[in-house]
């Protein structure tokens, strides 16, 4: 091993080389994950005339966005309310014939959970995923959800990249130690930092629920229906028999997320669920918790909770 000239480089030179290798590994990782999703070779499907709220929410942010959308709908229809300490509480209003998804979330709300507990309940997530399977299948048939190949390539990239980074650093450390050099702490730090960066990049590049085609589809919908959102926001809190986002307009909550409610009478949803998402790191790992905190637009936490 000592015959490898690279490993014989003086410490500073090797660190420079290691830095270049780390950057190349990260770049290659991003490219491999990027090209594993070839769904954008086809243009997105046409913007639907009557978007399905659950379908849009699921595509925008997975189960978490579906839960957010249903919570909002249950509150605007009087079945639930936002309570103190970020809790979602039942109002006691007797539900009529609610769809299965809404029924299941309303059952959860009977326990007056904090908002983040709605996302952390693994049993409920599993049930919701089962109920959402037809939705997922419809989206997958149109290449709108991230293909399995992305997950496969993410694993390959993480394993392969980590092997390169750890292997190169390990070999140099071995050579250094066998030649009596013990000042390897910075290389160890660089190695750990590079591997963490690799995993973070792999997570960020794959956390979105939608495929590249799905993203284009969502962007087209956001552009097409922005005027309807603007009109609905003006109606939030207005005394009216019909709520701003009721019925055919509910999909706007799933599409634009709670951040769109900023400055309206319903801005509390944004704060309530933002804090909740920020606290939900316990179930998803710290990186996801942080991402959720910024993900009211729905892009962040779809992957949170494992492959929903």
């Amino acid at each position, binding site marked *: 091993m000592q015959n490898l000239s690279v490993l014989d480089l003086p410490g500073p030179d090797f660190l420079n080389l290691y830095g270049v290798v780390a950057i190349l590994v990260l770049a290659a990782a991003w490219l491999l994950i990027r090209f594993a999703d070839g769904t954008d070779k086809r243009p997105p499907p046409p913007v639907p005339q009557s978007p399905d709220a659950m379908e849009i929410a699921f595509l925008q942010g997975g189960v978490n966005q579906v839960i957010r959308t249903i919570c909002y709908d249950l509150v605007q229809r009087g079945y639930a309310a936002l309570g103190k300490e970020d809790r979602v509480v039942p109002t006691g209003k007797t539900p009529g014939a609610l769809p299965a998804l809404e029924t299941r979330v309303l059952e959860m709300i009977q326990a007056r959970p904090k908002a983040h507990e709605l996302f952390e309940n693994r049993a409920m997530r599993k049930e919701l995923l089962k109920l959402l399977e037809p939705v997922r299948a419809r989206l997958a048939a149109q290449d709108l959800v991230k293909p399995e190949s992305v997950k496969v390539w993410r694993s390959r990239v993480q394993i392969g990249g980590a092997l390169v980074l750890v292997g190169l650093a390990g070999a140099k450390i071995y050579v250094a130690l066998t030649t009596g050099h013990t000042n390897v702490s910075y290389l160890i730090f660089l190695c750990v930092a590079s591997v963490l960066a690799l995993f973070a990049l792999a997570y960020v590049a794959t956390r979105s629920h939608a495929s590249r085609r799905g993203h284009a589809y969502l962007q087209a919908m956001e552009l097409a229906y922005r*005027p*309807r959102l603007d009109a609905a926001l003006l109606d939030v809190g207005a005394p009216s028999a019909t709520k701003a986002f009721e019925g055919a307009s509910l999909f706007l909550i799933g599409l634009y997320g709670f951040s769109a409610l900023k400055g309206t009478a319903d801005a509390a949803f944004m704060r309530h669920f933002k804090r909740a998402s920020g606290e939900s790191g316990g179930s998803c790992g710290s990186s996801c918790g942080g991402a959720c905190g910024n993900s009211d637009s729905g892009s962040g936490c779809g992957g949170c909770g494992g492959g929903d």
Partner: protein
Amino acid sequence: MIAAAVVAAVAAATEAPVLGSGIGYRPAFRADLFANRSRVDCLEVIADHYFDASPEKIAELDLLRAHFPIVAHGLDLSIGSAEGIDCAYLEKFARLIERLEPPWWSEHLCFTRAGGVDIGHLAALPYTREAIDVVARNVETVQKRISAPLILENITTVVRVPGAEMDEPEFLSRVLEATGCGWLCDVANLYTNAVNQNIDLDATFERWPWNRLVQIHYAGGRWRDGVLIDSHDSPTSEAVWALYDRVIARAPVKGVILERDERLPRFAELLDEVAHARATLRECGRWG
């Protein structure tokens, strides 16, 4: 050489696909438009709104193009200016047409610029042979840069320019003959001019160049100080509908477009007008 170009232009316009019944696009009703996509056959966009446009406006245009057949309508080409065509403006228009690839595009038969001054108004041309020559020369310039068929729209005018050598039907027919352009017949403008200038439309009806008809505009107007204004801010009147029906029965047409710019009603009311226009197309075997 010029005659060949004219023949080619005529052929291109008349061979264009039939687009059906559509509406002049306005961003205010974008969401309603997408929510009722199946009820609108085609769109017309104002080309000038997309020159030097922001990325968001370009994205909007691409989105519209992905969902509807689109034709472009210009406001400020000033096809009748004796000083010729503004090359910078033409270049912008050409780039937009390259992006949209419409089956045809349209401009008003008028001038909006004189002596280098933009007058901000669709001004009527004198109905003279000299004006026809000017328009023919300008159209030739335009066609060298934009190969998609150009069609010309009749405008409203509250005054007749003195020195006319012919009336409007003859002037329009001769312009289309000299340029090879198709006709965008604005039935509301026909009606408005007839009312304001006391013209008997029945007497002149057959003298309009129906063989060059490609597209129709219709819209509602408003009376102001005893003058009917083509204001595009009210529902299409019964009189304009009657004229529209007569035109559709008289000549084949590729597309009909509702123009509504001000005092936008509920979108359902616009859809009703689009459906009305489509029904006449169907009854006359022009569409569907």
